[in-house]
C-alpha cells in the first residue's frame, strides 16, 4: 500500500538524520583540535552515489556544511569510480575543492553494499595546525600557508596511507594532535557507514536511490513554494570592511526569480595581498546560508534546498583563485551574510536584522618562555564573538556568533592548554547600536602571558575601522579595538608580539541597532541602565 510506503520513507528520512548525528557525535568525542571539541567547528553529512547531499548533522557550522555539500562532487570528479574500493577514505585540504582554507580537513568515505557503490559520508574539521606560517593572514600565497593535500586516498581498502601520515607528521607543529584528528575524521565516517548499512538491511532497501529521491523531491517542492511567495526583482547592497591594509568592498546583487534566488558579487574589491581572500566555495556557503535563514529556515539543508540558490562572481576577493592566500577566509566570508541580508532587506522591509560583528574575533596565540627561563611552549586558539545585529522585534544577541555556528571554549579549559592568563572576558557596555531594538553587546577580553612567558598573536579582527551598520534608523554598533593595557594600539590583522608583563586587550564590536532610537521603550532603556548594558559613559 502506497500510503504505508510514504510513511516508511518519512521515517527513514528521520533515521538518516540520526545516522549523521551519530557520525558527528563520534567526531565531537574523539577530536583533538580544540576548535572541534569545545567549539563544535565541524560538520558531517551523507550523500547519494552521485555526490548529492541528502542529510547533514545539525551540529556544524554553515561554512563547513554548505562547502562540504559541494566538495563531495569534487572528490567524485578526481577519483575515478573504478579506483574506489570498500574500505577507502579520501582526503583533501585544498581550499578551492574543500572548505576554503588549509586548516580544514575534509574526508569522504564511499559506502558499498555488496559491489554497488551506494553513497558517501563526508566530514570536515578544523585542525590545530597545518604547518606553514600558522593560522594568520601573513602568507603571500597559499604555498606559504602550510602543507597542501590534494584530493587523494587517506586509506585504501582499509590500509592507511603511511607515506601521507609520515609527510604530515614532518610538516605540522602538533603532529600527534593533527594525525589523531585525521583518524577521528575517518572513524566518524566509518560509524556513519556501519549505521547506514544496518538501516538499509533492516528496511530491505538495496541502496539510497528511493529514499534519496523522496528527500530531494520533497525538499525541492517546499523550497520552490517558499521562493514563489517572495517578491520578485533585483536588489543591491554593498559593505565596506576593514580589509588588511586597505578597506575592502563587498558588493552583492540579489535576484529573486520564479524558481531561484541568485546572488552575484560583481563590484567587490579585487584579490587582497593578504590571507583574507575567500575561495568561491566558501563565499557560496555563506551566501546560501543567509538566503536560507530568510527564505526557508525550517527546510532541511540538502542538495535540493541548496540547488535553488545560485551564487556567482567575477574573480575578486570573494572569488579568489589559486594561489591567493586564504588562511583567514572567514574574516571576509563571515561578512557575506550581512551583505546579502542587506539586499534582502530591501525586498522584505521590516523583516531583516541589522548588521552585526560578523567575523568571529578569534585569536591564535603562540606562547613561549622568555629568553633564558624555563616554561611551556604552546599554541592556543580562542573563539570569541561580538554582538549580533538587532532584530526587527528583538534586541540583538550579545557576544553571540553569527553567522558562524561555533561555541566559545571555557577559559578554564583554554588556560589549561597553554601558559596564558585571561584576565577578563565579559560584556562590553555601550557597544550595542541604539535603536528601537538595541544591537547586541560586544565583549572585552584581556590576555597576558603567564609568569616568565611572552606571546605572539595572530590578529584576525574586523569591524575596527568600519562598524556594523544599523537598519531602518538604528545606530551603528561600536567599532572593535585592539590595544595593549598601556594604551599601545595594535594592528587588527597580522602576527604581533606582546611583551612579558603586558596585557592584550580586545574589544569586540557590538551589533547595529534596528529602527529609530526615539521609539525604544522607556522600560527597555531603564533596564539597559540598571544592568549596565548602557552606562552613559559612567563605566
Amino acid at each position, binding site marked *: 500500500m502506497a500510503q504505508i510506503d510514504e*510513511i516508511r520513507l518519512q521515517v527513514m528520512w*528521520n*533515521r538518516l538524520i540520526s545516522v549523521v548525528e551519530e557520525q558527528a557525535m563520534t567526531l565531537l568525542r574523539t577530536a583533538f583540535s580544540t576548535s572541534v571539541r*569545545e567549539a563544535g567547528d565541524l560538520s558531517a553529512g551523507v550523500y547519494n552515489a552521485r555526490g548529492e547531499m541528502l542529510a547533514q548533522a545539525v551540529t556544524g557550522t554553515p561554512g563547513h556544511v554548505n562547502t562540504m555539500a559541494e566538495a563531495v562532487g569534487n572528490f567524485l570528479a578526481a577519483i575515478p569510480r573504478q579506483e574506489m574500493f570498500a574500505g577507502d577514505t579520501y582526503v583533501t585540504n585544498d581550499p578551492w575543492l574543500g572548505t576554503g582554507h588549509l586548516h580544514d580537513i575534509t574526508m569522504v568515505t564511499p559506502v558499498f553494499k555488496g559491489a554497488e557503490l551506494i553513497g558517501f559520508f563526508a566530514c570536515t574539521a578544523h585542525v590545530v595546525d597545518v604547518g606553514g606560517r600558522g593560522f594568520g593572514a601573513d602568507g603571500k600565497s597559499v604555498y606559504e600557508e602550510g602543507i597542501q593535500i590534494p584530493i587523494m586516498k587517506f586509506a585504501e581498502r582499509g590500509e592507511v596511507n603511511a607515506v601521507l601520515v609520515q609527510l604530515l607528521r614532518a610538516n605540522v607543529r602538533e603532529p600527534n594532535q593533527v594525525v589523531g584528528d585525521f583518524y577521528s575524521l575517518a572513524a566518524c565516517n566509518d560509524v556513519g557507514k556501519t549505521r547506514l548499512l544496518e538501516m538499509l538491511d533492516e528496511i530491505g532497501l538495496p541502496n539510497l536511490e528511493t529514499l534519496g529521491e523522496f528527500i530531494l523531491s520533497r525538499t525541492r517542492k517546499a523550497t520552490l513554494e517558499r521562493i514563489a511567495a517572495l517578491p520578485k526583482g533585483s536588489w543591491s547592497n554593498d559593505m565596506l570592511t576593514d580589509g588588511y591594509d586597505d578597506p575592502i568592498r563587498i558588493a552583492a546583487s540579489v535576484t529573486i526569480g520564479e524558481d531561484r534566488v541568485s546572488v552575484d558579487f560583481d563590484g567587490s574589491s579585487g584579490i587582497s595581498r593578504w590571507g583574507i581572500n575567500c575561495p568561491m566555495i566558501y563565499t557560496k556557503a555563506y551566501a546560501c546560508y543567509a538566503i536560507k535563514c*530568510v527564505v*526557508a529556515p*525550517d527546510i532541511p539543508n540538502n542538495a535540493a534546498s541548496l540547488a535553488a540558490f545560485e551564487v556567482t562572481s567575477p574573480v575578486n576577493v570573494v572569488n579568489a583563485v589559486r594561489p591567493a592566500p586564504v588562511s583567514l577566509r572567514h574574516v571576509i566570508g563571515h561578512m557575506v551574510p550581512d551583505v546579502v541580508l542587506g539586499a534582502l532587506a530591501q525586498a522584505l522591509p521590516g523583516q531583516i536584522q541589522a548588521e552585526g560583528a560578523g567575523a568571529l574575533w578569534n585569536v591564535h596565540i603562540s606562547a613561549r618562555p622568555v629568553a633564558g627561563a624555563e616554561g611551556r611552549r604552546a599554541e592556543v586558539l580562542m573563539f570569541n564573538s561580538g554582538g549580533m545585529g538587532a532584530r526587527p522585534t528583538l534586541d540583538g544577541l550579545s*557576544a*553571540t*556568533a553569527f553567522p558562524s555556528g561555533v561555541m566559545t571554549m571555557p577559559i578554564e579549559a583554554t588556560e589549561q592548554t597553554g601558559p596564558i592568563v585571561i584576565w577578563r572576558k565579559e560584556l562590553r557596555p555601550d557597544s550595542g547600536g541604539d535603536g528601537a531594538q538595541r544591537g547586541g553587546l560586544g565583549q572585552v577580553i584581556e590576555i597576558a602571558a603567564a609568569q616568565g612567558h611572552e606571546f605572539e598573536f595572530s590578529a584576525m579582527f574586523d569591524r575596527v575601522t568600519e562598524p556594523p551598520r544599523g537598519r531602518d534608523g538604528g545606530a551603528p554598533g561600536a567599532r572593535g579595538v585592539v590595544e595593549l593595557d598601556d594604551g599601545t594600539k595594535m594592528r587588527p590583522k597580522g602576527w604581533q608580539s606582546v611583551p612579558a608583563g603586558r596585557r592584550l586587550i580586545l574589544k569586540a564590536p557590538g551589533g547595529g541597532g534596528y529602527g529609530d532610537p526615539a521609539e525604544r521603550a522607556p522600560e527597555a532603556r531603564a533596564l539597559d541602565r540598571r544592568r549596565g548594558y548602557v552606562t552613559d559613559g559612567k563605566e
Partner: protein
Amino acid sequence: MSGTGEIRLGADIGGTFTDIALDLRGAIHSTKVLTNYAAPEQAILDGIGIVLEEAGIGWGEIDIVIHGTTLATNALIERRGARTALVTTEGFRDVIEMRTENRFEQYDLNIRLPEPLIPREDRFPVKGRIGAGGEELQPLDEAALEALAERIAAEGFGAVAIGFIHSYMNPAHEERAREILAARLDIPISISSEVSPQMREFERFNTVCANAYVRPQMADYLGRLQVRLKEMGADCPVFMIHSGGGLISVETASAFPVRLVESGPAGGAIFAADIAARFGLRKVLSYDMGGTTAKICLIEEFQPQTARSFEVARTYRFCKGSGMPISIPVIEMIEIGAGGGSLAWVDAMGRIQTGPESAGSEPGPACYQRGGTRPAITDADLVLGKLDPENFAGGKILLSVDEASAAIAREVGERLGLDGVAAAFGIVEVVDENMANAARVHAVENGKNVSDNVMIAFGGAAPLHAARLCEKLGIDRCLVPQGAGVGSAIGFLKAPFGYEALASQIAALSAFDAGAVNAMLDGLRETAEGFVRMGTTGEIRREVTAFMRYRGQGWEIPVPLPDRAFAADDRAMIETAFKERYARFFGRAVEGPEIEFVTWSVKAQDIRPAPARVALDADGEAKPAGAARAVFDPASGRALETAIVAREALAPRARVAGPAVIVERETATVVTSPFDAVIQPEGSILLVRKGA
C-alpha cells in the same frame, strides 16, 4: 536501619501527580494524588493517609520516608527562587549570561537565549585570581568583600552564590570569601567548589547559582514537611533521593538542593535497575514514557549509567543548548518530547512531526473530549486499536474514537492524502522512530550498542510502544513490570544511601604523583562516606573513577580504577585501563598523544539487600486466545486480527502469541506480530521475539 523488615515509604512529587508507595515487608501499597502546588507537603500527607489505611498500619510504624521532588526543577523552570547575589572573579561578571556564545538553532534568526538565573545588576565582581594550576595569581580583595556584605544586606538578597575562576583547583578564595560574608550576613551562602568542583566555568557558576537560588525555598519546604510528619506521628527520619539516585539526609539536601533536580526520573531508573537485578539482566535499556516526555537510560550490571552534568529547563523545543547546564553527578538519561499527550503536525515538506508540544492533561488529547482539537499520540494509538475506548484508566475516562479520527484527519490525513489509519500509523511510526533514534544516539555517546540489551518499559504510555521500539532497535526481550505507573516512588524504596564526590585535578599521566592522588582520593572518600554515614551504619561499597582523555581532547571517558592507595608503578596499569576503555568507546586507542587526568570521583553507597533472584521465563505455555479485534500491526503494515487479553486473567507462565493486546487498568501492553508475551512468576510481562 539495617534494611530487613523495616517499613519504607516513598513519596514522589511530580508535575501532575504525587505518587506514594509503601513497602510493608515486601507488599507494595501505592496511590496517586494530585500535586498541591501551594502546599506540596499536604499532598504527601494525604497520600500517606490513603496507603496507611490500605495497609492497615499507623503513622508511627513507618521506619523511613524517602522523598523525591520536582520542586527544585520547577523553581528553576518557573524562575521562582530567591533573589540571589553572585560574587565572582573580576573580569568574569557575565559568564552565566554569555554562555557558550553560540545559537542553539542555526537558521532561526529570532531565537531568544534563556535569561541568566541572576541578572547582571546582581552579579558582583571581586579582585582575586587563582591560576590554572591552583596557584594564587592575585590576592583576594577582602576589604571589597566586607563592603559588598553591607550592600548585599542592605539590598535584601535572600541568598548568595560564590563562583571564582579555577576554584575546582584551589577553593581557598571561595572559602575565605564565604567566611567574610557569613560573618556579616544571615542568609545561606553556596560556593562553587563545594557544590560542583568541576572544570568549565559556565557550568560550575550556573550550578552554584541554581543551588543558591532554590536553597531558601527548598530548606523551608523540607523543614515544613518534617514538622508536619512529626505532628502526624511519623517520627521517623526523612531522606531525600538525589539526581544521582542515592539517598542523602534532609540537612544535606537543604544545603545542596540543586542535587535534588531530576530526582523523580532517577527513581524510575532505580526502579528499572532493581528489576534488572531481580532477573539478573546485566544490560538493560530502561524506557519510561509518560504524558509529555520519554526518558531512556542505560543500566549495566544493575547500575544506571551516571554523568557529571546535564541540562534543565530547555526553552526551545527541547533543543540542546536552550536550557541551563547543571554539573552534578546525575543518572544519565536522554529525555525527548514524546509522550501520550505530544501533538502531531505536518511540516513544510509534508512530513509528520510529533511533539515536543503536548496537549497535557487539560485539554488533553482530542479523544478525551475535553476540548482538545489537535491529534496527540494517544489519539493515534486509539485509532490503531491499541487502546480500548471503554476501558481507559479503568473506565474513568471514556475515549472517543470519532474525535480522535476527526483530529487526525484534519491535521494530518487531509494534508497528506492519507486515510485515517495510515495517518495514525504515520504519527505513531514517527514518534517511535524519534524515540529509537534518541536511544541510538545516546548509546553512541556512551560507546554502547543497544541491540543486545533487555528493555524495561514503564510509565503509562510505554507498554503501548515498547514492542515496536524493540523492533526498531533490534532488541529481542522487553519486560513490562507491575506497578509501572508509580515506578519512581517504588524505585525510591530500593535506593541505597549513596553519594558521589568529585574533584577536577588536571595532570598528565606521565607525571603521575601517587602521593598527591592518594591524598585527594582520601578527601573524596571522607566526603562521600560522611554523607552516607548520615543514613546508615551498614557496610559501604566504594567505586573510584578517573575521568581521563588524551591531552588535547575535550571529552573525558570514565575509567574505573581499584579502590586502594596507588603506588608510582600503578602508572602502567592506569594507562592500560584507559586504553582499554578508550578502545571500547571509540574502536581503537591512539598511539602517541599524552594521556591526562581531568576529574576524579569516589562514589560510596551502602549495600542494599539484593532482591530475590527470579529466573526469566522465556518459554511459558501457550494460552489459547480469546476475544479479538483489529489492531494495526506496524511490521505487516496493515490491521491484523489481534487477541485482547486481560492482564489479571493471565497466570504466570501463560504465553500469549502476538499480535495481541494485554489490557489492564492504567495501560495496555501491545504485543506486535514479531513478539510473544510470557507472564513471569512475579507478574511482569516479558515480550520475547519469536524464534529468538
